[in-house]
Structure formats: structure tokens, C-alpha cells
């Protein structure tokens, strides 16, 4: 009986995406340790990685990193295919969509902070639409909207500032990129 070995051919960019996704995953596990006042209100630190990858390597790489992070995060934290997983997934898809669109904004005027804020708002939009149409089809959900919007604004701004700092300092993000 011969042992069969399946070997997948991987490229350097695969490795790079995997590394960035792992980095994002680390951040989401880290923030999962912090208690949240309201389910769904999280800093979303992993989006910093998505923003950096987007700026450096384009939206395809960013989409890979973001979706791999959601998938692996679901497996790692044990909520794979649970409502929480799908909420994260719909949020991630919505923010990726708006990030792709935001690349067409003039870079002279709009930086990572803009992208981060837009992505944060898109994220809660995606999540809340799923919550409304799937989990809690109740108009009372509207009363939480300002809280989610405020969280998106604050965390989006902070994440964007952090991403902007990293993008300005090649020696720091270079470590993560090698």
C-alpha cells in the first residue's frame, strides 16, 4: 500500500495572502476577548489588515484576506455556519463591495480613513439587513441603528487612522509583508 500525497501548487502570493489573513485572524481573535455592550459592536481591528492589503495589493487580495479571515475565524471561534458567522460574512461582503467602489475616489482627497469609515458603515448595513430579514424581522431594531452607526463612525475612524499610519511607515508593515 502506497501512501498518496496530495500536493497543491502554491504561489508566493498565496503565501502572502495566507500570512495577511492569519494576521487579520489574530486581531479578530484578540478583540473577541473583549466584552461588547451590544452584540455586533466590535472594533473590527481585522479591517486594518484589509485596508492595508487593499492599498498595497488591490481588491482581489483584500477580498481573499477578508473572506479567509471570516471563514477561519468561524472555524477557530466555533461559530462556523452559525448566525454570528453569517452576520460577519454579510458585513465583510458589504464592506468589500464599498471598498472596491471607494478605490475610484480621487486619492488626492480621500485616504484610508475615508475607506475605513465607508467600510464600517457598509459592514453594519450588511449585518443589520441580514438581522432584519433573517433573524429579527421587527421594526424595533431601528432603535439600535444610531448606536451601530456611532460605533461604525468611531471604530471606522480609528481603524482608518491606524491603517494610514501603517501605510506611511513601510518598515513596520514590511515586517508583516515579508
Amino acid at each position, binding site marked *: 500500500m502506497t501512501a498518496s500525497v496530495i500536493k497543491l501548487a502554491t504561489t508566493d502570493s498565496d503565501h502572502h495572502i495566507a500570512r495577511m489573513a492569519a494576521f487579520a485572524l489574530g486581531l479578530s481573535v484578540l478583540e473577541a476577548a473583549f466584552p461588547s455592550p451590544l452584540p455586533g459592536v466590535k472594533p473590527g481591528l481585522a479591517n486594518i489588515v484589509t485596508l492595508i492589503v487593499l492599498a498595497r495589493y488591490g481588491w482581489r487580495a483584500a477580498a481573499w484576506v477578508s473572506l479567509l479571515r471570516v471563514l477561519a475565524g468561524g472555524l477557530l471561534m466555533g461559530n462556523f455556519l452559525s448566525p454570528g458567522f453569517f452576520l460577519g460574512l454579510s458585513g465583510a461582503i458589504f464592506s468589500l463591495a464599498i471598498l472596491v467602489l471607494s478605490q475610484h475616489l480621487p486619492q488626492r482627497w480621500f*485616504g484610508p*480613513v475615508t475607506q475605513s469609515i465607508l467600510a464600517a458603515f457598509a459592514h453594519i448595513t450588511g449585518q443589520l439587513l441580514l438581522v432584519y430579514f433573517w433573524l429579527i424581522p421587527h*421594526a424595533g431594531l431601528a*432603535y439600535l441603528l444610531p448606536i451601530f452607526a456611532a460605533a461604525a463612525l468611531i471604530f*471606522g475612524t480609528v481603524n482608518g487612522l491606524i491603517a494610514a499610519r501603517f501605510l506611511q511607515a513601510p518598515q513596520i508593515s514590511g515586517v508583516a509583508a515579508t
Partner: protein
Amino acid sequence: MNYNKLHVKFGDWLVLLAGAFFTLWLASLVWHGSAADKAIIRSGGKIFRELPLSRDLELEVPGPLGMSKISIHNHQARITSDPSPRQYCVRQGWLKQAGEVAICLPNQVSLELSGSKKRYDSLSY
């Protein structure tokens, strides 16, 4: 830290400002309370009873876990007891303004106050 070091561009400030206005607008739209005159009680997503707040009463609403007790008193309404494990809806206490909602999730019972005029709601159209 100066602006350059923060790397916030002009458009970023605009987006930040727009986001802040949007959040405030949302809050004023959604949290602008008005006097309530009716309690809408739902069980399993369907309207179980609609009651005026002018009459004091106690009511038991059946859900999958058991009975939730609702009381109306002095133009206010609350969920007095509920079999749900976390008791969020009970701890919410008295609901006073139109639009306030208490939802007992595992028991699928909810209590919503509504005013005479139905306000615009961004989620139901």
C-alpha cells in the same frame, strides 16, 4: 500630532463629518419619542392583542416557553414576568414612549408602544 502625521486628507474630514451628521440624523429620526396611546403585543411574530394604555390591566401571553405576564398601568406598560433565561425584557422596566419595545426572545413575545400617528420608520415601508 499634526495633520500630516495623522495623514487625514481633506476628503476624510468631509466623510467623517458626513458620518457624524448621518448618525445624529438617524438618532433624531429614531429616538424622537412621542406620547404612546396603544400597546401592541406580539407572540411568535403575530399580533396577539392591541390594547389602549388608558385602562390598567394585567395580561398573560402564551409563548413556546410559557406565559409572559404584561401589565399596563398609568399609561405605561411593562413585561412583569417571563420564562426567558436572561430576562432582558423584564429588566427593561416600564415603557412610556411611542416606539419603545421590549422583546422576550426565546419566548417570542414582544411588547411595543405606538402613538396615534405612525411615524416614518426606516425599516418598515
